[in-house]
């Protein structure tokens, strides 16, 4: 018997804005000047927030922090496509998404400074706090999408993660459930090429990460993750598809982490300077600015005004963060169970006495 092809698939790559700041009109998502400038403002805000975080860490005012530089387009493009009623499940390198969803910047600084109150998502936001173990939040996002489908809510869920997460079992288990039950979820993988020191070639032997969706029975698309218009378009299509009940999508945002993994990492140990330099030329902010200059006569003066405004917003957030009174350590016992157990009540009392004695000594 001759062999026959039983299935074929393809993976598309979407780019709308090229590295020189030119757009493909045929693929244009119909954004107006205000929206485009809003994207740019958001990207600059995230970069400013991030640079400030790195400075605060160096000054000892913040603990370990995971920088997001280079991935602003992936975050702004996807966050812009989300509705407030949608749910998001971020990993730990998505401060941009969280900020755009409305999480006060103060809280993100607070979290990375070691204050648990930074994880208290405001009641009106359907966001999960960031997940530190890699990829384990993907099934949670799938469960929320399932619950939304069960209740008939017209919402979509977005799960964010990096290329490293695609090596984990939870990624595969989550995608499999999403495919089997046709759930309203969009998996947004920011392929930033490095999982700490391990390159993409050690995460997968596959040509793309997007193609992994095909194994689970749904569509995967690779987009230029440094092109905010491409990310926005892909995310918007996928979220609308999810809300229509047509199932999940995996979006691979092909991007790059310009900075170290975290402030505790030194990427120069494993990454060539030339590689980083190549990607700096593809910086999503530089690219969108070139577009603004070309299309809307964006000037150096406009740039200066915007940068100053964003710096003021970030400075205000830092001020708020540093003005927060210290956390009462006794709260560690209060939020473990709905009703504290007898052991916890006893242990809380031990800590209370210890704190009191310390105070009396001072």
């Amino acid at each position: 018997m001759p062999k026959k092809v039983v299935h074929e698939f393809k993976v598309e790559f979407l780019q709308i804005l090229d590295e020189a700041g030119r757009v493909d009109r045929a693929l244009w998502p119909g954004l107006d000047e205000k929206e485009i400038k809003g994207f740019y403002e958001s990207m600059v805000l995230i970069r400013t927030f991030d640079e400030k975080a790195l400075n605060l860490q160096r000054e000892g005012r913040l603990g370990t922090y995971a920088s997001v530089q280079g991935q602003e387009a992936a975050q702004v493009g996807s966050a812009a496509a989300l509705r407030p009623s949608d749910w998001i499940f971020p990993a730990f390198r998505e401060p941009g998404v969280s900020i755009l969803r409305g999480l006060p910047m103060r809280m993100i600084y607070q979290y990375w400074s070691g204050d648990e109150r930074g994880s208290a998502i405001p009641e009106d936001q359907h966001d999960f706090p960031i997940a530190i173990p890699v990829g384990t939040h993907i099934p949670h996002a799938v469960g929320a999408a399932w619950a939304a489908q069960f209740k008939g809510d017209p919402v979509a869920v977005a799960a964010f993660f990096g290329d490293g997460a695609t090596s984990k079992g939870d990624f595969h288990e989550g995608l499999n459930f999403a495919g089997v039950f046709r759930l309203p979820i969009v998996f947004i993988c920011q392929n930033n090429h490095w999982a700490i020191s391990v390159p993409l070639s050690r995460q997968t032997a596959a040509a793309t990460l997007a193609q992994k969706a095909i194994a689970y029975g749904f569509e995967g698309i690779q987009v230029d993750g440094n092109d905010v218009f491409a990310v926005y378009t892909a995310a918007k299509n996928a979220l609308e598809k999810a809300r229509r009940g047509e199932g999940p999508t995996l979006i691979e945002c092909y991007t790059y982490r310009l900075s170290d993994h975290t402030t505790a990492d030194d990427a120069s140990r494993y990454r060539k300077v030339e590689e980083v330099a190549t990607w700096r030329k593809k910086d999503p902010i530089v690219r969108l600015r070139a577009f603004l200059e070309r299309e809307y006569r964006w000037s150096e003066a406009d740039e200066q005004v915007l940068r100053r405004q964003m710096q003021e917003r970030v400075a205000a957030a830092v001020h708020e963060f540093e003005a927060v009174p210290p956390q009462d350590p006794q709260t560690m016992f209060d939020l473990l169970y709905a009703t504290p157990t007898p052991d916890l009540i006893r242990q809380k009392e031990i800590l209370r006495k210890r704190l009191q004695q310390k105070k009396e000594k001072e």
Partner: protein
Amino acid sequence: MSKLNVVQAINQALRHEMERNPDLILMGEDIGKDGGVFRVTEGLIDQFGERRVVDTPLSESGIVGVAIGMAAYGLTPVVEIQFMGFLYAAMEQLISHAARLRTRTRGRYTCPIVVRTPYGGGIHAPEHHSESTEAFFVHTPGLKVVVPSTPAEAKGLMLSAIRDPDPVIFLEPAKIYRAIKEEVPEGDNAIPLGEARLLTEGKDLTLITWGAMLHPTLKAADRMAEKGVEAEVIDLRTLSPLDSATIIRSVEKTGRAVIIHEAPKTCGLGAEIAARLCEEALLSLEAPVARVTGFDTPIPLPKNEKYYLPDVDQIVEAAEQAVGF
């Protein structure tokens, strides 16, 4: 009231809660059409449909992880893991996420899930089917661990586990799934979590146990009684949170304690109970706290299983030693 076994009693509890709570979903491998490998969920798919009784992919971490997201969104997932030995695949989800969702979100999201799993030896099962590693879960802050010992207990504790606002690991002793029948109240006999029960009163000795081991322990107490030794038998029912007060109160009265569990001895829950007795009831103790437990080995394959599991003779022997100390 009708006479039910443990399987039927848990089935009745699930049915009762599914009728009460339209957001309760059952999920697991083979729990739908097949009714679960032990038939605990038998018939529920016929009554509640595939939307609420879901045969999932073979994926323990996926099942528990998905349940966490569902619970955070507002559903009440009750999941079955076929055997305790398969629950390890979901350990990260339980420890890193289910157990701390409330605390790490400052109370914004909670995780009211129940993870049901058969556990324990004595059923002549293959490898990984007879685990008794409840201490892993008791050691994890944020989880609750419940082990019923009879049909009525199983129903009453399951009702409370499902209604509990926090994640509960519900360990079903496989050995007594069908071995015991008793009258089980038809309606709502919810038994509060966190409260041990005192089965017999006595002045000489306290026997502390849970799950399937309650039954040889009761037999041992009967044998001791024939010799004129009065033992109190405590069935812990909830291993986390642990009802220390009942244990301490009893041992303060009897002065002697023997803890019986089928889990490996080292770092088993017996070690924790013995430590608490030393911390809080030392001056009442008339003898060293004794433990009758499994060995620090994997539970053997069926042919050697009986040499591993504690039996009535061992419990009697330990009790006699404590009384004669």
